């Protein structure tokens, strides 16, 4: 799902009807094809503001399982909208085949045209970027619908009921992002893990084995569960807690699958919005708009991609980087040629390649240059007492660290990495989970509550190894409550 925020400017009302949109769409599609965009078939649905709020609350899905948190999210969005704090998005696209996009019916003709062009950018990205390869786009809508039906059935089942379903869903939602982040990397089955452990234990073949004493091979412990630390918390619980009922396991699967579907969006937010903005700009510029529409286009385009001080606007950052890549490969400065050599690919070739093989973290690491960072004035801040203070700016010494911080905050990097290390810790089925600390501590209140959920799903004691204020600590959660112990 992807949505362009309404920047707030009141759109001028230009009368249009559906045939106008069909006509504009044809022209835009021709242009997109001419530029080399490769899209799924597209469907547009016109909706009013309540419809749009509804789609937003349910992440754009036409059908979705019920849970009170979506009611909360709707109320929140509606309150913000009613009080004019935030506008509604101009559009919303979901990654499915055919791609489905929602258009606001109250928008002016130009906004619709701009939006349609923008949507084709997303569509192309969904179809071609590697992170989306694992989300089977043809099945998206069906899968969400089937999950919704199953959850509704559990809710209606008199032996289960809404309270029980919520108990599992509340807990599962708290842990849903604790899953594998790069779905392009295959997860090994336990058998394959065993084979790998065996291979590792044997070590490298020794070319001089005749003259060397034979090394003692230590047999790997195949009884350990899991053999390798496991990131998929929900799936691990599903497969290793024997006391879960089938419907409980099914709920865990549903939540995990949905999280994995949205991981791709999260991982490519900046690239994706930048890419769509890049193409809507290009397409609209090539459409030879009449002057009135053209001015409206420029105003709206600049609203969407403007820098927002104190934040990172993914539209702005993404568009800047894409334009910079294109420029450096089409028309590099003498200095850049001296530093990087002459480009071997054309700008167009390069950006199409990048849109296929990168995600936000690698995109920024490879293509956000020092000059660009300085131009955009990207800085790092940290908390000092009650205040957030700028700690580093993108100058000669600091830019790489600022960039590293930025990368730590994009996509799934902003979510702590937790892995199950041992499902039978202390031989009493205690679940041992380790937080892979990278300098950032967990928020302790949130950790406590989330650990409670984990314990609830696991059914036995759970412990979490982490680092608090530089000290290795163990957060324990069992029937007696929550406690923190220092580790040596």
């Amino acid at each position, binding site marked *: 799902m992807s949505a362009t925020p309404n920047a707030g400017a009141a759109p001028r009302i230009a009368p249009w009807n*559906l045939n106008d*949109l*069909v006509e504009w769409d044809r022209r835009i*599609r021709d242009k997109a094809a001419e530029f080399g965009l*490769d*899209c799924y*078939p*597209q*469907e*547009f*649905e*016109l909706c009013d503001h309540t*419809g749009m709020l*509804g789609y937003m609350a*349910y*992440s754009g899905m036409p059908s979705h399982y*019920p*849970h*009170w*948190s979506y*009611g*909360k999210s*709707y109320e929140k969005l509606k*309150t913000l909208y009613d009080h004019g704090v935030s506008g509604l998005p101009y559009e919303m696209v979901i990654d499915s085949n055919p791609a489905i996009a929602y258009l606001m019916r109250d928008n002016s003709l130009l906004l619709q045209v701009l939006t349609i062009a923008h949507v084709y950018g997303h569509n192309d990205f969904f179809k071609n970027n590697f992170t989306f390869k694992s989300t089977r786009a043809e099945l998206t809508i069906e899968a969400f619908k089937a999950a919704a039906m199953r959850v509704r059935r559990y809710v209606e089942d008199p032996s289960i009921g*809404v309270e029980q379903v919520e108990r599992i869903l*509340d807990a599962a939602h*708290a*842990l849903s*992002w604790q899953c594998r982040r790069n779905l392009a990397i295959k997860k090994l089955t336990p058998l394959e893990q065993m084979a790998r452990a065996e291979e590792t234990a044997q070590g490298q073949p020794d070319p001089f084995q005749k003259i060397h004493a034979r090394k003692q091979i230590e047999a790997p412990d195949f009884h350990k569960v899991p053999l390798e630390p496991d990131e998929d918390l929900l799936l691990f619980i599903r497969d290793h807690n024997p006391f879960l009922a089938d419907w409980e396991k099914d709920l865990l699967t549903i939540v995990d699958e949905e999280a994995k579907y949205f991981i791709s969006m*999260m991982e490519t*937010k900046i690239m994706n919005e930048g890419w769509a903005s890049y193409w809507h700009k290009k397409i609209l510029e090539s459409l030879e708009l009449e002057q009135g529409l053209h001015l409206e286009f420029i105003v709206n385009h600049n609203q969407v991609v403007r820098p*927002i*001080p*104190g*934040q*990172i606007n*993914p539209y702005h950052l993404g568009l800047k980087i894409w334009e910079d890549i294109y420029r450096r490969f089409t028309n590099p400065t003498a200095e850049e040629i001296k530093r990087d050599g002459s480009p071997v690919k054309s700008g167009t070739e390069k950006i199409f390649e990048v849109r296929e093989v990168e995600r936000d973290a690698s995109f920024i690491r490879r293509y956000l240059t020092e000059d660009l960072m300085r131009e955009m*004035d*990207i*800085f*790092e*801040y*940290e*908390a000092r007492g009650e205040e*957030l*203070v*700028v700690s*580093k*700016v993108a100058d000669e010494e600091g830019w790489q660290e600022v960039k590293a*911080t930025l990368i730590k*905050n994009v996509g799934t990097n*902003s*979510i702590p990495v937790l892995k199950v290390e041992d499902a039978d810790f202390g031989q009493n089925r205690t679940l041992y989970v380790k937080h892979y600390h990278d*300098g950032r*501590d*967990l*928020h302790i209140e*949130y950790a406590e*509550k*989330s650990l409670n959920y984990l314990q609830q799903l696991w059914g036995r004691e759970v412990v979490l190894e982490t680092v608090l204020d530089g000290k290795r600590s163990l957060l324990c959660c069992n029937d007696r409550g929550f406690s923190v112990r220092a580790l040596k």
Partner: protein
Amino acid sequence: MSGGDTIFREYRISDAERSDRSAGDRLRHRQKVRESIRENIADIIAEESIIGKSKDRVIKVPLRGIKEYRFVYGDNAPGASQGDGDSRPGQVVGKTGKDRPGKGDEQAGDRPGVDYYETDVTLEELIEIMFEDLELPNLERRALREIQSDYSSRRKGYRKVGIRIRLDKRRTAKQRVMRMLASDKRIDAVARALEESKADRELDTGVEGALDEIALEEGVLDEEALAASPGAAFQRVHRRFPFHQNDLRYKHVEIDTKEESNAAVICIMDTSGSMDTMKKYLARSFFFLLYQFISTRYRNVEIVLIAHHTEASEVTEEEFFHKGESGGTFISSGYAKALEIIAARYHPSLWNLYAFHCSDGDNFDSDNPAALKDAEELAGICNLFGYGEIKPLGSRYYESSMLNVFRRIQAPNFHTVLIERKEDIWPSFKAFLAKDRVKEA
């Protein structure tokens, strides 16, 4: 470009009206909010001056929302964001906890959000939530007149007359079918006979004629009637059969009342000069809750309001909650007035009596013995006699207190509480009325 044409789906009002898909989830969220309100009710009561406000008034209740927890990073995680062109190290860009800069991407939920928002609740709703677990304690059955508490309606049988909204469509339709079947069995026989000998009869005379013929043969219609209106049998076979007044069936609803014993609640408030604004505010808050509680939960409980300084008088609701007075304090005067009213109108053998008194305890010393005696007498005849002493923090060291005096009262149904600040009101109120109160008797 692969695939066929782009599909545009037009906006349809009917879809939009149907599409309030979040209604169920909103309802569920609302229920959760309600639970949350109930848990935090003491804070809400303390914050909101709800005294004497109309029931329809909408109150903004701050809610520590129903948080959705996840594993997130805490405050020592640095972030990156964009400046306005000349950011310098050391520049302050925000506050921790709220409006933290960072990505505007909500989806990840990567920061502990301050899930703090307000919700609108009407006073009536709030009162309902507050009083869910409370009732008048020690209510005993006393003879004679009984009063109603709560009433509910219950379905009981069906009637031929009733209001439109209770029309039972299924039963009504069934009645019509029954009447139709019963009305003309012989005409059905005519129709069946036609079916059996359809071909040859119809060839000669057509369907209408054939039916007339059979009807004549079967003796259903006589010749005279047929001559007057040819085709009468056909019309009767294919007749309309509209609903009749007698077909209508209505659900019958009976009102189910729950009878409680007679009860009267006597509120006695000290309005003397020593009761300053703060004390009066606390006392009135307490009585307001009591008054709301009784009038919401018990339909016919009688409430007596007494205000006293050196003299006591029975007052109206308006006067009780809004009028200030001055003068010295004779607590006994209030009790005497209560006893007088009880003697005149509410005989203890017929009534459950509840008396509550709020005062700052700053009584004239000379009155103490009399007050003690009257209090004992009140405790003797009431199911519950509560005394709330209002001593805003700081004032109790240099003022006399009735709590010490009343300590001598041994009656098990006499309770005292100390209210020092507005946060104490709700707990002390609950202490008086909680359902699961430990019975010391």
